[in-house]
C-alpha cells in the first residue's frame, strides 16, 4: 500500500492547527458527554451536529469522530467514582473500578482506565487500518443464526460471571430480553406489553432502563448507608497524581491483556449491532477466564478495569469498518455518526474504498490521535473528578438523582420514562441487595432486538435446523463451555467465594 496515502493524512492533521484544535476541543466535550450519566455519545453527536454545519467535511467528520471516540473515556469516571455508568458500555468498568474507589484507589482506577482507553483506542484505529484489505469476508461471515446465538452467548457469558448464582444471572439476563420485547412487534405490528401506553410503542428506553437499574439503586444504597461513596475515613480530599500514574503503569504491566482485549473489542465492534455493550462485557469475561487469581475480580482488581476500558475504545475503530464501507453502522452511536457524515456530504459505502481513502485514513488517524491526546486532557482534568469521591452522599445523592431523571427524560423526551426509571430503580435496589446481578439485564435489553430479528431471519432461511450450521455449532459449543467452566470453578473449594461482580 502506498505509504503516502497512509501517512499523508496524518501529516496533514498534525500540521494543521485548525484540525488539531478541533480534536483538542472535541476531547473534553466527549469526556463530558460520557461522564454525565444518560447523555452519552449519541446525544453528544446529535447536539454537536449544529456546530459543524458549514464546516469542511473533513474537519466536521474529524471533530465528531474525535468527540465520539473519547466518550467512553469520560464514561469511566462516574463508573469508577459513583458506581453509575456514564454510558451503557461503561457498566462493566463498575465491577472492579467502583470497589477500587471504595478502597481509596480512585486515582489508580482512573489512571488504569485512562491508559487502557488511550491504548485501546489507538489499537482499535490500527486494527481498522490493518483490516481494510480483508474487511468484507469477515463481516459477511456472520449470518442471522450466528447473531442470535451470539446474543445468547453474551448473556450466558455475563451470567457466568455471577459467581454466586448462575441461575440468578441468566434469569436477570432473560428479564432484560423480556423488557426489550416491549413495544410494537416488528413482524405483526401488534402492541406487545405496552399496556396501551404510547411511550412504550417504540420500546423501553435503554437509557432510562440502565439508569433505573444502575444509578437509582446506587443512590438508594448510598442514602441508606449514609456517608461518602468512598469507605475511606480521614483521608484528605486531595488529588494524588502518583495514583493515576500508577494506574497507567498497571496497563503496561499487563501488556498482553491490553492487546488481547483491544483486538477482541475491535473485532466485536466490527460486527454490526454488537459493537456496544457486548464488547466491554465479553472482554471483562475474557480477563476473568484467562488471568491468574480470577477470584480477585469483582473486588477491585485493576485488570477488571483495563479489560473493559480497552474494549470500549478499541471497538470504535472496529465499528467504523462496516459504517464506512457498507453504510451499516457498527453500533447505535455509529448510526448517529453515519447520519452526521451524510449531512456533511460524506457518503459512506464501498465507493469510499475506491476514491475516498484519503478521508478514511484521516478518520483513522483522528481516532488514534483523539485517544492518545485524551490521556493528557484527562490527566489535566482528573484531579477534580478524583476529589468528587470524598463528597458526602447527602450532597451527592440529590444531584445524581436529578441528573438521572434528566437523562431518562432526555433519552426519549418523555416524562413517562422518569416514572419507568424510578420503578426499575426500586426493582434494581432489591436485585442488588439480594444478589441478583444486574449487568445481564443490560445485555439482554441491548441484544434483545437483535436476537429476535436474527432468530426470525434464521428460521425463515434455514428452518428449525439453523443451529446446525458450522459457525452456529461453534457458538453453541462456546455457550456450553462457558457453563461448564462456571460449574467447574464453582466446585473448586478455593474459588467458591470466587467471582463476585454484582454492582
Amino acid at each position: 500500500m502506498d505509504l503516502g496515502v497512509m501517512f499523508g493524512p496524518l501529516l496533514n492533521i498534525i500540521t494543521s492547527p485548525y484540525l488539531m484544535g478541533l480534536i483538542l476541543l472535541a476531547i473534553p466535550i466527549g469526556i463530558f458527554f460520557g461522564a454525565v450519566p444518560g447523555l452519552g455519545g449519541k446525544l453528544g453527536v446529535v447536539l454537536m451536529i449544529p456546530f459543524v454545519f458549514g464546516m469542511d467535511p473533513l474537519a466536521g467528520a474529524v471533530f465528531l469522530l474525535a468527540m465520539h471516540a473519547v466518550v467512553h473515556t469520560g464514561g469511566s469516571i462516574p463508573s469508577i467514582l459513583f458506581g453509575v455508568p456514564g454510558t451503557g458500555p461503561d457498566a462493566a468498568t463498575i465491577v472492579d473500578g467502583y470497589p477500587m474507589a471504595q478502597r481509596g484507589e480512585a486515582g489508580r482506577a482512573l489512571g488504569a482506565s485512562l491508559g487502557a482507553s488511550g491504548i485501546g483506542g489507538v489499537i482499535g484505529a490500527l486494527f481498522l487500518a490493518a483490516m481494510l484489505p480483508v474487511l468484507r469476508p469477515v463481516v459477511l461471515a456472520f449470518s442471522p443464526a450466528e447473531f442470535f446465538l451470539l446474543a445468547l452467548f453474551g448473556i450466558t457469558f455475563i451470567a457466568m460471571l455471577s459467581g454466586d448464582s448462575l441461575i440468578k444471572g441468566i434469569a436477570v439476563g432473560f428479564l432484560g430480553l423480556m423488557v426489550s420485547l416491549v413495544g410494537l412487534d416488528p413482524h405483526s405490528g401488534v402492541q406487545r406489553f405496552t399496556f396501551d401506553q404510547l411511550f412504550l410503542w417504540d420500546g423501553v428506553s435503554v437509557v432510562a432502563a440502565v439508569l433505573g437499574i444502575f444509578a437509582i439503586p446506587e443512590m438508594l444504597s448510598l442514602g441508606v448507608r449514609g456517608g461518602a461513596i468512598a469507605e475511606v475515613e480521614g483521608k484528605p480530599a486531595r488529588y494524588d497524581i502518583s495514583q493515576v500514574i500508577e494506574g497507567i503503569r498497571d496497563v503496561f504491566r499487563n501488556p498482553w491483556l491490553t492487546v488481547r482485549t483491544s483486538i477482541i473489542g475491535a473485532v466485536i465492534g466490527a460486527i454490526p449491532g454488537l459493537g456496544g455493550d457486548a464488547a466491554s462485557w465479553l472482554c471483562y469475561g475474557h480477563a476473568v477466564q484467562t488471568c491468574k487469581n480470577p477470584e480477585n475480580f469483582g473486588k477491585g482488581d485493576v485488570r477488571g478495569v483495563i479489560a473493559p476500558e480497552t474494549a470500549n475504545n478499541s471497538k470504535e475503530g472496529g465499528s467504523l469498518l462496516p459504517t464506512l464501507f457498507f453504510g451499516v453502522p457498527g453500533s447505535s452511536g455509529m448510526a448517529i455518526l453515519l447520519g452526521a457524515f451524510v449531512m456533511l456530504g460524506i457518503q459512506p459505502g464501498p465507493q469510499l474504498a475506491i476514491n475516498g481513502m484519503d478521508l478514511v485514513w484521516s478518520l483513522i488517524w483522528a481516532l488514534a490521535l483523539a485517544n492518545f491526546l485524551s490521556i493528557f486532557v484527562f490527566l489535566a482534568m482528573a484531579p477534580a473528578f478524583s476529589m468528587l469521591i470524598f463528597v458526602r452522599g447527602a450532597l451527592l445523592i440529590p444531584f445524581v438523582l436529578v441528573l438521572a431523571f434528566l437523562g431518562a427524560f432526555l433519552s426519549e423526551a418523555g416524562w413517562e420514562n422518569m416514572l419507568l426509571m424510578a420503578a426499575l430503580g426500586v426493582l434494581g435496589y432489591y436485585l442488588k441487595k439480594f444478589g441478583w446481578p444486574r449487568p445481564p439485564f443490560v445485555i439482554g435489553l441491548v441484544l434483545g432486538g437483535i436476537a429476535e430479528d436474527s432468530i426470525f431471519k434464521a428460521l425463515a432461511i434455514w428452518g428449525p435446523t439453523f443451529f446446525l450450521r458450522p459457525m452456529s455449532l461453534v457458538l453453541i459449543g462456546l455457550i456450553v463451555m462457558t457453563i461448564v467452566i462456571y460449574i467447574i470453578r464453582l466446585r473448586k473449594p478455593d474459588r467458591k467465594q470466587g467471582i463476585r461482580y454484582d454492582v
Partner: protein
Amino acid sequence: MMFDMRKTVTLVMLGIFTGAVLIALTLPSQAAFMPFLVGIPGMMLCAAQLVIDFTTAEDAPKASQKDGFDDSRTEAQMFAWLGIFTAFLIGIGFQWGGPIVVALFVRYGSRDTWGNACFAALGTFAVLFGVFVWLLELHLFQGLIIERLM
C-alpha cells in the same frame, strides 16, 4: 418468617415472567414467539431459585448488614425521597423542581444547614440552566403542573 424479602424478590421475578407468558398467550403467534422463548425458561429458572431459597439458610440480611444497609437511614425513607423526587420533577419540572427538591433533601433528608441546602440548590440550578438550557440549548421538561398552568 416464611416469606422474607429474599423470597419475595424471587417471587416477583417469577411473577414477571409468568405474567409476560400469560399476556403472550393473547398475542398472535409471531408476536408471542419470543416472549415464550424467553419467558418459559425464565419461569423455570425463577422456580428453581425459589426452591433454592426455601431449601437454603437465609444469609442475605447478614450480608446487607455487613454492607451497612440498615445503618443510619431506613429504606422506607429513601424510597419516600425517590417518590418525592419523582413527584417534584414530573410536577414542576427540572428548572424549578430540581433545585427545590435538592434543597429539601439536603435540609431535611440529611439534616444539613439551610445554607448548604441553598448552596446545593443554586448549584443545581446553575448546572441545569447554565449547561443544559443555555449552553446545550436543550428543552428541559417544564413539569405537568406548570405546563397545564401555562
